[in-house]
Protein backbone atom coordinates (compact mmCIF):
# COMPACT_ATOMS: atom_id res chain seq x y z
CA UNK A 1 0.00 0.00 0.00
CA UNK A 2 1.82 3.07 -1.21
CA UNK A 3 -0.97 5.24 -2.56
CA UNK A 4 -0.11 8.93 -2.30
CA UNK A 5 -2.63 11.68 -1.84
CA UNK A 6 -2.32 15.45 -1.85
CA UNK A 7 -5.46 17.13 -0.60
CA UNK A 8 -5.92 20.91 -0.94
CA UNK A 9 -2.22 21.51 -0.33
CA UNK A 10 -1.03 25.12 -0.28
CA UNK A 11 2.49 26.29 0.44
CA UNK A 12 3.99 29.72 0.92
CA UNK A 13 7.69 30.33 0.36
CA UNK A 14 9.17 32.75 2.88
CA UNK A 15 12.67 33.63 1.75
CA UNK A 16 14.68 35.66 4.27
CA UNK A 17 14.75 39.36 3.38
CA UNK A 18 12.12 39.27 0.63
CA UNK A 19 8.37 39.04 0.29
CA UNK A 20 6.64 35.66 0.77
CA UNK A 21 5.25 34.04 -2.38
CA UNK A 22 2.47 31.53 -2.75
CA UNK A 23 4.17 28.54 -4.38
CA UNK A 24 1.29 26.07 -4.34
CA UNK A 25 -2.41 26.80 -4.17
CA UNK A 26 -4.89 24.11 -3.13
CA UNK A 27 -3.29 21.27 -5.02
CA UNK A 28 -5.14 17.97 -4.97
CA UNK A 29 -3.64 14.93 -6.62
CA UNK A 30 -3.66 11.17 -6.15
CA UNK A 31 -0.83 8.91 -7.24
CA UNK A 32 -1.69 5.25 -7.63
CA UNK A 33 0.37 2.41 -6.31
CA UNK A 34 3.21 1.44 -8.69
CA UNK A 35 2.35 4.26 -11.03
CA UNK A 36 4.92 6.44 -12.77
CA UNK A 37 3.61 9.97 -12.47
CA UNK A 38 5.37 12.97 -13.96
CA UNK A 39 4.88 16.48 -12.56
CA UNK A 40 5.33 18.76 -15.55
CA UNK A 41 5.45 22.53 -15.45
CA UNK A 42 7.51 25.66 -16.05
CA UNK A 43 10.30 26.46 -13.62
CA UNK A 44 9.08 28.11 -10.47
CA UNK A 45 5.64 26.45 -10.66
CA UNK A 46 6.13 24.66 -7.35
CA UNK A 47 6.56 21.14 -8.70
CA UNK A 48 9.71 20.57 -6.67
CA UNK A 49 8.00 22.02 -3.62
CA UNK A 50 5.25 19.45 -4.04
CA UNK A 51 7.92 16.72 -4.14
CA UNK A 52 9.70 18.07 -1.04
CA UNK A 53 6.41 18.12 0.86
CA UNK A 54 5.89 14.47 -0.06
CA UNK A 55 9.47 13.70 0.94
CA UNK A 56 8.82 15.28 4.34
CA UNK A 57 11.60 17.83 3.90
CA UNK A 58 9.25 20.81 4.13
CA UNK A 59 6.43 21.08 6.68
CA UNK A 60 2.87 20.72 5.36
CA UNK A 61 1.28 24.06 6.23
CA UNK A 62 -2.15 23.77 4.66
CA UNK A 63 -4.00 20.73 3.42
CA UNK A 64 -2.85 17.14 3.82
CA UNK A 65 -0.22 14.89 2.27
CA UNK A 66 -0.69 11.19 2.99
CA UNK A 67 1.13 8.02 2.03
CA UNK A 68 -0.89 4.80 2.42
CA UNK A 69 -3.42 6.84 4.37
CA UNK A 70 -0.92 8.15 6.91
CA UNK A 71 0.01 11.85 7.00
CA UNK A 72 3.62 12.65 6.11
CA UNK A 73 5.44 14.11 9.12
CA UNK A 74 9.07 13.87 8.05
CA UNK A 75 11.53 12.08 5.77
CA UNK A 76 11.57 8.30 5.86
CA UNK A 77 13.17 5.34 4.12
CA UNK A 78 9.86 4.44 2.46
CA UNK A 79 10.40 7.49 0.19
CA UNK A 80 13.79 7.61 -1.52
CA UNK A 81 14.80 10.77 -3.37
CA UNK A 82 17.12 11.55 -6.29
CA UNK A 83 18.11 15.17 -6.88
CA UNK A 84 19.14 17.02 -10.04
CA UNK A 85 22.65 17.74 -8.77
CA UNK A 86 23.17 14.20 -7.52
CA UNK A 87 23.68 15.13 -3.85
CA UNK A 88 26.35 12.46 -3.45
CA UNK A 89 28.64 12.59 -0.42
CA UNK A 90 31.80 13.80 -2.18
CA UNK A 91 34.08 12.43 0.57
CA UNK A 92 32.72 8.90 0.15
CA UNK A 93 33.60 6.50 -2.64
CA UNK A 94 30.94 5.04 -4.94
CA UNK A 95 30.73 1.97 -2.72
CA UNK A 96 30.61 3.98 0.51
CA UNK A 97 27.88 6.24 -0.88
CA UNK A 98 25.74 3.22 -1.72
CA UNK A 99 26.48 1.58 1.63
CA UNK A 100 25.36 4.64 3.61
CA UNK A 101 21.64 3.95 3.38
CA UNK A 102 22.19 0.27 4.13
CA UNK A 103 24.10 1.17 7.28
CA UNK A 104 21.18 3.34 8.39
CA UNK A 105 18.91 0.32 7.89
CA UNK A 106 21.08 -1.58 10.41
CA UNK A 107 21.49 -4.51 8.04
CA UNK A 108 24.18 -7.08 8.90
CA UNK A 109 27.54 -6.35 7.29
CA UNK A 110 27.56 -9.29 4.87
CA UNK A 111 24.08 -8.41 3.66
CA UNK A 112 25.09 -4.75 3.16
CA UNK A 113 28.13 -5.71 1.12
CA UNK A 114 26.10 -8.11 -0.99
CA UNK A 115 23.43 -5.51 -1.76
CA UNK A 116 26.02 -2.81 -2.54
CA UNK A 117 27.68 -5.21 -5.00
CA UNK A 118 24.34 -5.97 -6.68
CA UNK A 119 23.47 -2.29 -6.99
CA UNK A 120 26.85 -1.34 -8.44
CA UNK A 121 26.25 -4.00 -11.10
CA UNK A 122 22.66 -2.87 -11.62
CA UNK A 123 23.77 0.65 -12.54
CA UNK A 124 26.76 -0.60 -14.57
CA UNK A 125 29.46 0.88 -12.37
CA UNK A 126 31.52 -2.26 -11.77
CA UNK A 127 35.19 -1.28 -11.45
CA UNK A 128 34.36 2.18 -10.10
CA UNK A 129 33.63 0.98 -6.56
CA UNK A 130 36.49 2.95 -5.05
CA UNK A 131 36.22 6.08 -7.21
CA UNK A 132 35.18 9.38 -5.66
CA UNK A 133 32.25 11.32 -7.17
CA UNK A 134 34.65 14.04 -8.39
CA UNK A 135 36.27 11.43 -10.65
CA UNK A 136 32.98 10.48 -12.37
CA UNK A 137 31.02 11.97 -15.28
CA UNK A 138 27.57 13.46 -14.67
CA UNK A 139 25.77 10.37 -15.91
CA UNK A 140 27.85 8.10 -13.68
CA UNK A 141 27.23 10.34 -10.68
CA UNK A 142 23.51 10.15 -11.24
CA UNK A 143 23.69 6.37 -11.53
CA UNK A 144 25.45 6.27 -8.15
CA UNK A 145 22.76 8.50 -6.70
CA UNK A 146 20.03 6.24 -8.06
CA UNK A 147 21.81 3.14 -6.70
CA UNK A 148 22.21 4.79 -3.30
CA UNK A 149 18.51 5.58 -3.19
CA UNK A 150 17.47 2.12 -4.40
CA UNK A 151 19.75 0.51 -1.79
CA UNK A 152 17.21 1.27 0.91
CA UNK A 153 14.54 -0.32 -1.35
CA UNK A 154 11.97 2.45 -0.95
CA UNK A 155 8.42 1.72 -2.10
CA UNK A 156 8.25 5.26 -3.47
CA UNK A 157 10.89 6.90 -5.62
CA UNK A 158 10.92 10.72 -5.75
CA UNK A 159 12.92 12.22 -8.59
CA UNK A 160 13.58 15.95 -8.80
CA UNK A 161 14.62 16.69 -12.41
CA UNK A 162 17.17 13.89 -12.04
CA UNK A 163 18.46 14.06 -15.60
CA UNK A 164 18.26 17.85 -16.01
CA UNK A 165 22.02 18.32 -15.60
CA UNK A 166 22.98 15.66 -18.18
CA UNK A 167 23.65 15.98 -21.90
CA UNK A 168 21.04 14.68 -24.36
CA UNK A 169 22.73 11.33 -25.16
CA UNK A 170 23.39 10.49 -21.53
CA UNK A 171 19.84 11.48 -20.66
CA UNK A 172 18.41 9.11 -23.28
CA UNK A 173 20.53 6.24 -21.90
CA UNK A 174 19.47 7.04 -18.36
CA UNK A 175 15.82 6.91 -19.42
CA UNK A 176 16.30 3.32 -20.61
CA UNK A 177 18.17 2.39 -17.44
CA UNK A 178 15.52 3.90 -15.20
CA UNK A 179 12.72 2.07 -17.02
CA UNK A 180 14.68 -1.20 -16.82
CA UNK A 181 15.27 -0.75 -13.09
CA UNK A 182 11.61 -0.06 -12.45
CA UNK A 183 10.61 -3.11 -14.45
CA UNK A 184 12.87 -5.21 -12.21
CA UNK A 185 11.81 -3.66 -8.90
CA UNK A 186 8.39 -2.05 -9.39
CA UNK A 187 7.89 1.20 -7.50
CA UNK A 188 5.65 4.19 -7.27
CA UNK A 189 7.56 7.01 -8.97
CA UNK A 190 6.89 10.74 -8.77
CA UNK A 191 9.11 12.43 -11.34
CA UNK A 192 9.50 16.20 -11.57
CA UNK A 193 10.51 17.61 -14.96
CA UNK A 194 10.03 20.54 -17.29
CA UNK A 195 10.88 18.39 -20.33
CA UNK A 196 7.67 17.44 -22.16
CA UNK A 197 9.19 14.55 -24.16
CA UNK A 198 10.79 13.11 -21.06
CA UNK A 199 7.47 13.22 -19.21
CA UNK A 200 5.56 11.54 -22.06
CA UNK A 201 8.23 8.90 -22.57
CA UNK A 202 8.68 7.85 -18.94
CA UNK A 203 5.35 8.42 -17.23
CA UNK A 204 2.05 6.57 -17.12
CA UNK A 205 0.32 9.84 -16.29
CA UNK A 206 1.48 13.42 -16.56
CA UNK A 207 0.17 16.09 -14.17
CA UNK A 208 0.55 19.48 -15.87
CA UNK A 209 1.02 22.35 -13.45
CA UNK A 210 0.23 26.01 -13.96
CA UNK A 211 2.69 28.86 -13.47
CA UNK A 212 2.99 30.26 -9.96
CA UNK A 213 1.03 29.81 -7.82
CA UNK A 214 1.18 26.15 -8.83
CA UNK A 215 -2.05 24.31 -9.41
CA UNK A 216 -2.78 21.07 -11.24
CA UNK A 217 -4.04 22.19 -14.63
CA UNK A 218 -4.73 18.83 -16.19
CA UNK A 219 -3.79 15.19 -15.79
CA UNK A 220 -3.03 13.36 -19.01
CA UNK A 221 -2.82 9.59 -19.48
CA UNK A 222 0.08 8.82 -21.79
CA UNK A 223 -1.26 5.37 -22.57
CA UNK A 224 2.11 3.91 -23.52
CA UNK A 225 2.51 1.55 -20.56
CA UNK A 226 4.15 -1.69 -21.65
CA UNK A 227 5.35 -0.42 -25.04
CA UNK A 228 8.12 1.82 -23.81
CA UNK A 229 11.38 1.70 -25.71
CA UNK A 230 13.43 3.83 -28.06
CA UNK A 231 11.11 2.86 -30.96
CA UNK A 232 8.17 4.55 -29.26
CA UNK A 233 9.54 8.05 -29.72
CA UNK A 234 9.32 7.72 -33.51
CA UNK A 235 5.61 6.89 -33.54
CA UNK A 236 2.81 9.21 -34.52
CA UNK A 237 0.95 8.54 -31.27
CA UNK A 238 3.99 9.69 -29.28
CA UNK A 239 4.38 12.86 -31.33
CA UNK A 240 0.68 13.66 -30.92
CA UNK A 241 0.86 13.19 -27.15
CA UNK A 242 3.92 15.43 -26.92
CA UNK A 243 2.16 18.05 -29.06
CA UNK A 244 -0.93 17.92 -26.87
CA UNK A 245 1.09 18.38 -23.68
CA UNK A 246 3.15 21.14 -25.27
CA UNK A 247 -0.06 23.05 -25.96
CA UNK A 248 -1.00 22.76 -22.31
CA UNK A 249 2.42 23.80 -21.05
CA UNK A 250 3.25 26.51 -23.58
CA UNK A 251 0.91 29.14 -22.19
CA UNK A 252 2.16 28.50 -18.67
CA UNK A 253 5.79 28.68 -19.72
CA UNK A 254 5.20 32.05 -21.40
CA UNK A 255 3.39 33.26 -18.30
CA UNK A 256 6.30 32.12 -16.11
CA UNK A 257 8.79 33.87 -18.44
CA UNK A 258 7.02 37.22 -18.48
CA UNK A 259 6.63 37.17 -14.72
CA UNK A 260 10.31 36.58 -14.05
CA UNK A 261 11.82 39.87 -13.03
Amino acid at each position, binding site marked *: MTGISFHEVSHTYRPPRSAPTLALERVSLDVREREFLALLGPSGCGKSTLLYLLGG*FLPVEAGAVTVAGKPVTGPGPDR*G*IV*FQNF*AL*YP*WKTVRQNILYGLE*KQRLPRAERERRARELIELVHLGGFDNSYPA*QLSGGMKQRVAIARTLAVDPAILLMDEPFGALDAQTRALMHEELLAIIRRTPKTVVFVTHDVREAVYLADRVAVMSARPGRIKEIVDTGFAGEKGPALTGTRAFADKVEHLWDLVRGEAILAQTRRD
Partner: protein
Amino acid sequence: MRSAVVRYSPLLLLAIAWEAVPRLGLVDPDTLPPLSAVLRAWIGLLRDGDLAVNGLSSLQNLTAGLVLAIVVGVALGVLMAWYWPVEVLVNPLVRILYPLPRSALIPVMILWFGLGAASKIAAVFLGCLLPVVIGAFNGARGVEQVLIWSARAAGATSLEVLREVVVPAAMPEILAGIRNALALSFILLVAAELLISQRGMGYLISSFGEAGAYDAMFAGVLTVSAVGFFADRLYLLVMGWALRWRG
Protein backbone atom coordinates in the same frame (compact mmCIF):
# COMPACT_ATOMS: atom_id res chain seq x y z
CA MET B 1 65.26 18.59 -9.87
CA ARG B 2 65.68 21.89 -11.62
CA SER B 3 62.41 23.20 -10.24
CA ALA B 4 63.59 22.42 -6.69
CA VAL B 5 66.80 24.35 -7.29
CA VAL B 6 64.85 27.31 -8.69
CA ARG B 7 62.30 27.15 -5.87
CA TYR B 8 64.89 27.23 -3.11
CA SER B 9 67.33 29.61 -4.77
CA PRO B 10 66.11 32.69 -2.84
CA LEU B 11 66.81 30.76 0.36
CA LEU B 12 70.30 29.96 -0.86
CA LEU B 13 70.90 33.62 -1.79
CA LEU B 14 69.73 34.68 1.66
CA ALA B 15 72.15 32.20 3.28
CA ILE B 16 75.05 33.50 1.17
CA ALA B 17 74.18 37.11 1.97
CA TRP B 18 73.86 36.28 5.67
CA GLU B 19 77.38 34.81 5.62
CA ALA B 20 78.91 37.56 3.48
CA VAL B 21 77.44 40.74 4.94
CA PRO B 22 78.96 40.45 8.47
CA ARG B 23 82.23 38.96 7.11
CA LEU B 24 82.70 41.90 4.74
CA GLY B 25 82.17 44.24 7.67
CA LEU B 26 78.99 45.72 6.16
CA VAL B 27 77.27 45.21 9.52
CA ASP B 28 78.69 44.62 12.97
CA PRO B 29 79.20 40.81 13.36
CA ASP B 30 78.01 41.21 17.00
CA THR B 31 74.53 42.27 15.93
CA LEU B 32 74.36 39.86 12.99
CA PRO B 33 76.74 36.90 13.42
CA PRO B 34 77.56 35.12 10.13
CA LEU B 35 75.45 32.07 9.33
CA SER B 36 78.35 29.66 9.90
CA ALA B 37 78.75 30.97 13.48
CA VAL B 38 75.00 30.57 14.04
CA LEU B 39 75.12 26.99 12.77
CA ARG B 40 78.10 26.23 14.99
CA ALA B 41 76.16 27.62 17.97
CA TRP B 42 73.20 25.47 16.94
CA ILE B 43 75.32 22.31 17.06
CA GLY B 44 76.51 23.41 20.49
CA LEU B 45 72.92 23.79 21.68
CA LEU B 46 72.10 20.38 20.31
CA ARG B 47 75.07 18.82 22.09
CA ASP B 48 74.34 20.52 25.44
CA GLY B 49 70.77 19.28 25.40
CA ASP B 50 69.45 22.87 25.61
CA LEU B 51 67.60 22.39 22.36
CA ALA B 52 66.06 19.07 23.41
CA VAL B 53 64.83 20.28 26.83
CA ASN B 54 63.41 23.59 25.61
CA GLY B 55 62.20 22.28 22.27
CA LEU B 56 60.32 19.44 23.92
CA SER B 57 58.73 21.78 26.45
CA SER B 58 57.61 24.12 23.65
CA LEU B 59 56.27 21.28 21.55
CA GLN B 60 54.24 19.89 24.46
CA ASN B 61 52.60 23.22 25.29
CA LEU B 62 51.96 24.02 21.65
CA THR B 63 50.33 20.63 21.03
CA ALA B 64 48.19 20.85 24.16
CA GLY B 65 46.92 24.35 23.32
CA LEU B 66 46.34 23.57 19.65
CA VAL B 67 44.54 20.25 20.22
CA LEU B 68 42.30 21.91 22.78
CA ALA B 69 41.55 24.76 20.34
CA ILE B 70 40.70 22.27 17.56
CA VAL B 71 38.37 20.15 19.69
CA VAL B 72 36.54 23.10 21.26
CA GLY B 73 36.64 25.21 18.08
CA VAL B 74 35.16 22.57 15.76
CA ALA B 75 32.42 21.72 18.26
CA LEU B 76 31.56 25.40 18.81
CA GLY B 77 31.64 26.30 15.10
CA VAL B 78 29.46 23.36 14.02
CA LEU B 79 26.97 23.94 16.84
CA MET B 80 26.79 27.64 15.90
CA ALA B 81 25.85 26.69 12.35
CA TRP B 82 23.41 24.01 13.47
CA TYR B 83 21.53 25.48 16.44
CA TRP B 84 20.52 29.10 16.06
CA PRO B 85 20.49 29.86 19.82
CA VAL B 86 24.20 28.96 19.93
CA GLU B 87 24.84 31.29 17.01
CA VAL B 88 22.90 34.13 18.62
CA LEU B 89 24.96 33.71 21.80
CA VAL B 90 28.42 33.05 20.38
CA ASN B 91 28.63 34.81 17.00
CA PRO B 92 28.65 38.41 18.35
CA LEU B 93 31.41 37.43 20.80
CA VAL B 94 33.47 35.93 17.98
CA ARG B 95 33.04 39.11 15.93
CA ILE B 96 33.99 41.39 18.81
CA LEU B 97 37.00 39.34 19.87
CA TYR B 98 38.31 38.62 16.37
CA PRO B 99 40.27 41.90 15.85
CA LEU B 100 41.77 41.72 19.36
CA PRO B 101 45.58 41.34 19.14
CA ARG B 102 45.93 37.83 20.47
CA SER B 103 49.22 38.37 22.26
CA ALA B 104 47.49 40.99 24.42
CA LEU B 105 45.86 38.06 26.18
CA ILE B 106 49.16 36.69 27.48
CA PRO B 107 49.46 39.03 30.50
CA VAL B 108 45.84 38.23 31.36
CA MET B 109 46.62 34.50 31.22
CA ILE B 110 49.63 35.07 33.51
CA LEU B 111 47.37 36.91 35.94
CA TRP B 112 44.88 34.02 35.94
CA PHE B 113 47.09 30.97 35.65
CA GLY B 114 50.46 32.13 36.97
CA LEU B 115 53.94 31.79 35.53
CA GLY B 116 53.74 28.20 34.29
CA ALA B 117 52.73 25.86 31.51
CA ALA B 118 49.02 26.49 32.14
CA SER B 119 49.33 30.12 31.02
CA LYS B 120 51.20 29.19 27.85
CA ILE B 121 48.68 26.50 26.95
CA ALA B 122 45.81 28.89 27.65
CA ALA B 123 47.40 31.60 25.48
CA VAL B 124 47.85 29.18 22.57
CA PHE B 125 44.32 27.81 23.06
CA LEU B 126 42.64 31.22 23.09
CA GLY B 127 44.76 32.55 20.25
CA CYS B 128 43.99 29.57 18.02
CA LEU B 129 40.34 29.13 18.93
CA LEU B 130 38.72 31.75 16.68
CA PRO B 131 40.17 30.70 13.30
CA VAL B 132 39.00 27.14 14.02
CA VAL B 133 35.53 28.30 15.13
CA ILE B 134 35.13 30.49 12.06
CA GLY B 135 36.31 27.76 9.68
CA ALA B 136 33.97 25.18 11.20
CA PHE B 137 31.06 27.65 11.26
CA ASN B 138 31.45 28.67 7.60
CA GLY B 139 31.96 25.08 6.52
CA ALA B 140 28.99 23.71 8.43
CA ARG B 141 26.74 26.58 7.35
CA GLY B 142 27.61 25.99 3.69
CA VAL B 143 26.60 22.32 3.66
CA GLU B 144 24.19 21.71 0.79
CA GLN B 145 20.62 21.18 1.94
CA VAL B 146 20.21 18.18 -0.38
CA LEU B 147 23.06 16.30 1.35
CA ILE B 148 21.23 16.64 4.64
CA TRP B 149 17.91 15.68 3.07
CA SER B 150 19.44 12.59 1.47
CA ALA B 151 20.72 11.41 4.82
CA ARG B 152 17.40 12.12 6.51
CA ALA B 153 15.57 10.17 3.80
CA ALA B 154 17.94 7.24 4.34
CA GLY B 155 16.88 7.23 7.99
CA ALA B 156 19.68 9.16 9.73
CA THR B 157 18.86 10.84 13.06
CA SER B 158 19.79 14.48 13.52
CA LEU B 159 22.87 13.60 15.56
CA GLU B 160 23.95 11.19 12.80
CA VAL B 161 23.41 13.89 10.18
CA LEU B 162 25.65 16.21 12.19
CA ARG B 163 28.43 13.65 12.62
CA GLU B 164 28.23 11.81 9.31
CA VAL B 165 27.27 14.60 6.90
CA VAL B 166 27.78 18.10 8.31
CA VAL B 167 31.26 17.59 9.80
CA PRO B 168 32.76 15.75 6.79
CA ALA B 169 31.18 18.23 4.35
CA ALA B 170 32.67 21.11 6.35
CA MET B 171 36.10 19.45 6.47
CA PRO B 172 37.81 21.62 3.79
CA GLU B 173 36.98 24.81 5.72
CA ILE B 174 37.73 23.19 9.08
CA LEU B 175 41.18 22.11 7.89
CA ALA B 176 41.90 25.56 6.40
CA GLY B 177 40.98 27.13 9.76
CA ILE B 178 43.29 24.72 11.57
CA ARG B 179 46.12 25.69 9.23
CA ASN B 180 45.73 29.34 10.28
CA ALA B 181 45.63 28.20 13.89
CA LEU B 182 48.83 26.20 13.43
CA ALA B 183 50.72 29.32 12.25
CA LEU B 184 49.25 31.37 15.11
CA SER B 185 50.19 28.74 17.69
CA PHE B 186 53.90 29.26 17.02
CA ILE B 187 53.57 33.03 17.36
CA LEU B 188 51.59 32.81 20.59
CA LEU B 189 53.72 30.18 22.24
CA VAL B 190 57.02 31.95 21.59
CA ALA B 191 55.52 35.28 22.68
CA ALA B 192 54.25 33.67 25.90
CA GLU B 193 57.64 32.06 26.53
CA LEU B 194 59.39 35.40 26.08
CA LEU B 195 57.28 36.74 28.95
CA ILE B 196 57.20 33.61 31.09
CA SER B 197 60.96 33.08 31.35
CA GLN B 198 61.18 29.58 32.60
CA ARG B 199 61.55 27.05 29.78
CA GLY B 200 60.89 26.77 26.07
CA MET B 201 62.30 28.10 22.82
CA GLY B 202 61.10 31.65 23.51
CA TYR B 203 62.87 31.56 26.87
CA LEU B 204 66.02 30.20 25.21
CA ILE B 205 66.02 33.02 22.65
CA SER B 206 65.43 35.79 25.17
CA SER B 207 67.99 34.51 27.69
CA PHE B 208 70.75 34.24 25.06
CA GLY B 209 69.81 37.71 23.87
CA GLU B 210 70.11 39.13 27.37
CA ALA B 211 73.44 37.32 27.90
CA GLY B 212 74.82 38.72 24.62
CA ALA B 213 75.24 35.24 23.06
CA TYR B 214 73.80 36.44 19.77
CA ASP B 215 74.94 33.47 17.64
CA ALA B 216 73.01 31.14 19.98
CA MET B 217 70.06 33.55 19.99
CA PHE B 218 69.93 33.46 16.20
CA ALA B 219 70.24 29.67 16.32
CA GLY B 220 67.09 29.60 18.46
CA VAL B 221 65.21 31.91 16.08
CA LEU B 222 66.29 29.81 13.11
CA THR B 223 65.13 26.62 14.81
CA VAL B 224 61.67 28.00 15.52
CA SER B 225 61.25 29.25 11.93
CA ALA B 226 62.42 25.93 10.49
CA VAL B 227 60.10 23.89 12.72
CA GLY B 228 57.21 26.23 11.87
CA PHE B 229 57.92 25.87 8.15
CA PHE B 230 58.15 22.09 8.23
CA ALA B 231 55.07 21.79 10.45
CA ASP B 232 53.10 23.71 7.81
CA ARG B 233 54.50 21.54 4.96
CA LEU B 234 53.64 18.39 6.89
CA TYR B 235 50.19 19.75 7.62
CA LEU B 236 49.61 20.45 3.92
CA LEU B 237 50.50 16.83 3.12
CA VAL B 238 48.06 15.53 5.74
CA MET B 239 45.39 17.95 4.50
CA GLY B 240 45.91 16.84 0.89
CA TRP B 241 45.48 13.24 1.96
CA ALA B 242 42.39 13.95 4.05
CA LEU B 243 40.79 15.86 1.15
CA ARG B 244 41.92 13.44 -1.57
CA TRP B 245 38.28 13.08 -2.62
CA ARG B 246 38.30 16.60 -4.08
CA GLY B 247 39.30 15.45 -7.58
